[in-house]
């Protein structure tokens, strides 16, 4: 039997880009414009730069242990009990991210497409497909993601075409009036939008490449694509809506899509949201997959029953997710999730890299 485990660089780019891009596309740049207003496109760009820095950190960390993934080498950095604890925290964080995405998109579907479908059915269905995919191997997931790249490109085309039309470039001016502090403040919600590169923690040893630096290149390309995509969206939104309008519209992209009329398709937003479901699902199943993989390393030995773990986590996600029908709970949950994202995607790699560096120094002496 052949056991092909490695994924190609091409697949890594698709996997990371599509994990980063998710439900956000509909809300960008609403969250990012709370303080910076019409300068929110700067927050988006700076968010991309921060994500790039975090990618470099994770890459440096992975390079120190090139044959292992984070749940394996974390024990070497932090020691057995603490390492297992961090693994468990990671598993919880990824499970929580899955929950977050499933719930947010179920909410979007509930409000825009399937009005009458009961909440529990929507969440159940989403969790079911997500778990069904996440139960496969990393390689299968990568191939699937790669195949969905086409769907993503269709969506990009739809966004670009529908966004250009009646708008006003003056919405952007005067540039920079909100001050640098406000712009920086708004990069915090952008962290969640860019989250997805933490996949590299796990996938580093599984990438087939001639030189390790190609991984960094591929990650940067992926992050660059995401940044460009978000930037295009925020520019399109700012072109269409003024700052005052943006204060009340929480899902600007949907409005832009709905406004646009094609000769063959009347309400483009439904088509878009349907196709976008596959892109959102990617983010969710990658997180669920990671959650199960991290959970597998909580314990003395690696737990090899991946499928079982995935379904256990999925049923928990479903159990919690079915209580989120209320919009207010969702909002407070989003705030909590923003903080968690920053912690796990930015603060933790710095900390781990420092500890690992110090350990290496001590060992050498």
């Amino acid at each position, binding site marked *: *039997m*052949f*056991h*092909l485990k490695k994924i*190609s660089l*091409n697949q890594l780019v698709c996997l990371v880009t599509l994990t980063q891009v998710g439900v956000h596309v509909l809300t960008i740049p609403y969250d990012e414009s709370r303080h910076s207003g019409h300068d929110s496109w700067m927050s988006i760009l700076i968010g991309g730069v921060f994500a790039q820095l975090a990618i470099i950190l994770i890459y440096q960390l992975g390079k120190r242990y090139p044959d292992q993934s984070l749940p394996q080498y974390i024990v070497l950095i932090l020691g057995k009990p603490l390492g297992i604890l961090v693994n468990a925290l990671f598993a919880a964080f990824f499970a929580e991210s899955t929950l977050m995405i499933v719930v947010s998109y179920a909410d979007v*579907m509930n409000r825009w*497409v*399937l009005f009458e*479908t009961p909440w529990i059915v929507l969440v159940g*269905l989403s969790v079911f*497909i997500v778990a*069904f*995919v996440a139960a*496969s191997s990393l*390689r*299968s*997931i990568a*191939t*699937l993601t*790669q*195949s*969905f*790249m086409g769907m993503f490109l269709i969506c990009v085309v739809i966004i670009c075409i529908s966004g250009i039309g009646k708008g006003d470039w003056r919405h952007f001016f005067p540039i920079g009036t909100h001050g640098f502090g406000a712009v920086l403040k708004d990069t915090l919600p952008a962290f969640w939008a860019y989250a997805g590169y933490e996949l590299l923690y796990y996938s580093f040893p599984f990438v087939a490449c001639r030189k390790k630096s190609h991984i960094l290149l591929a990650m940067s390309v992926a992050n660059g694509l995401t940044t460009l995509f978000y930037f295009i969206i925020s520019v399109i939104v700012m072109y269409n809506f003024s700052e005052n309008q943006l204060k009340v519209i929480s899902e600007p992209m949907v409005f832009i899509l709905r406004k646009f*009329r094609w*000769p*063959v*398709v*009347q*309400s483009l937003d*439904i*088509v878009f*949201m*349907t*196709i976008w*479901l*596959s892109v959102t*699902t990617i983010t969710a199943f990658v997180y669920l997959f990671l959650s199960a993989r991290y959970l597998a390393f909580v314990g003395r030995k690696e737990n090899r029953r991946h499928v079982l773990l995935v379904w256990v986590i999925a049923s928990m996600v479903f159990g919690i997710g079915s209580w989120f029908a209320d919009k207010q709970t969702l909002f407070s949950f989003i705030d909590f999730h923003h903080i968690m994202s920053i912690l796990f995607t930015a603060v933790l790699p710095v900390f781990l890299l420092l500890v690992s560096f110090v350990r290496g120094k001590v060992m050498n002496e």
Partner: protein
Amino acid sequence: MKSDTTLEQNEKTLRELLCDSSDFKTSDVETGDRHYRLFYLDTMVESVKIQDHIIRPLLHHNKSSVKEAVSILDYNETDLLSVASNELVEGKTVVQLDGESTLYLLGTEIIKERALNFPMNERVLRGSHEGLNENLNTNLNLLRKLIATPDLAVKSYQLGRRSKTKVSILYLRSLANDVLLNEFERRLEAVDIDYVDAPGFIQELIQDKQFTLFPKILITERPDRVRSYLMDGKIAILTDGSPDALILPVSFWSFFQSPDDYQVGWLFGSTIRFIRIVCFVLAIILPGIYVALVTFDPRILPFEIALTFQSSMQYVSMPPILEAITMLLILEILREATVRLPNPIGQTIGVVGGIVIGTVVVQSNLISNMMVIIVSLTGIASFIVPSYEMSNAARLLTYPFIIMSSIFGLIGLEIATILLMTHLVQLNTMGIPYFYAWFNKNTFQDTLFRFPIRYLKKRPTESMAQEETRLNSKKGAGN
């Protein structure tokens, strides 16, 4: 059982071994002091061969031994009656000299085969028009002629405890992957069944145990197609009694390749390849899209088109999902009836199907006009796929898609797509992935499109060939 020295005793035992069959015949040849007796099944032998190459030489060269006298290449000796009876069944003539216990087995079998014909199920416009037939040796002969290299290995097996069907594995020694080869030989040898019915039995017995609707072994009856796959480093399995060659391991994309693609120029070849794949997708999702649009999201459509749809459905009382499933079932019934009916009556089906079902069903407001169009389009689209097995998969997959889209609309369609794609990427042949995205570095040249031959430098990844490079020169000879 050892043979006796007396002719009568042997005849009696052989007759018993052959269940006292009435086509078991004997014939005596007496020359000088020697007395030969010939045993054969007269339904299995060619009498001319016996007369010209056994009886006449025996009479002429009455001094020499049987081996020296007879002019037959397929010559064997045994002194076991059980062996002799097995050989008799295959059309050998058993000769015994009175007073000796040696049995001479001489090949005199009659070869009745269908003449080489057009491949019935895989027609092409350009290229070879030769098809395999039911005789294994003829098929091997055809392939050896196409691949005249000592590198072509032919390994023969007998499958079936009772039927003893001959099965041959073909591969190119320097290309085929050893691990794959060993594993499939092991699987073939492990098969313990009383008889095999090719190609269905062999296909199901040797493929991985994984539930799927998709064919994981490609079946073809074109020698040139078998050659092209062997040249990719794949393995072909031929069975006596069946004109079908099984090819493995194959990927999803192989089922959309037709020999025509490589004969008509790359631009047109790519176009028809692309149309085929689009049609495969359409055959699966088109009724689903229609049902989703008319029942769930008519607001997606522009007002005028929605009105057209509405007007065709105005007097129809059935819900669209029932309409769709009924029409598709009728199409399946028609299709099956056309295959089973003898040719002269076959045209009746066209009349009954086309006029009665096509026209009257609409006029009596049972099914809407639009649905008839959609279903016919789906039916035709599923015919375009070159592989019969793949088009069957598309036909079956249509139903879950219709059901999903009638429950959740377009979202349901998307969910069904995701589940189907997940199933596809999980499939593998012994760990070799069955499906891969078409734009991979080494595979994009020959999947969704067919690039010019000079770009088809590498063998397909799924065959795991020992040597990957196919085309060595940087450019084609033309430049």
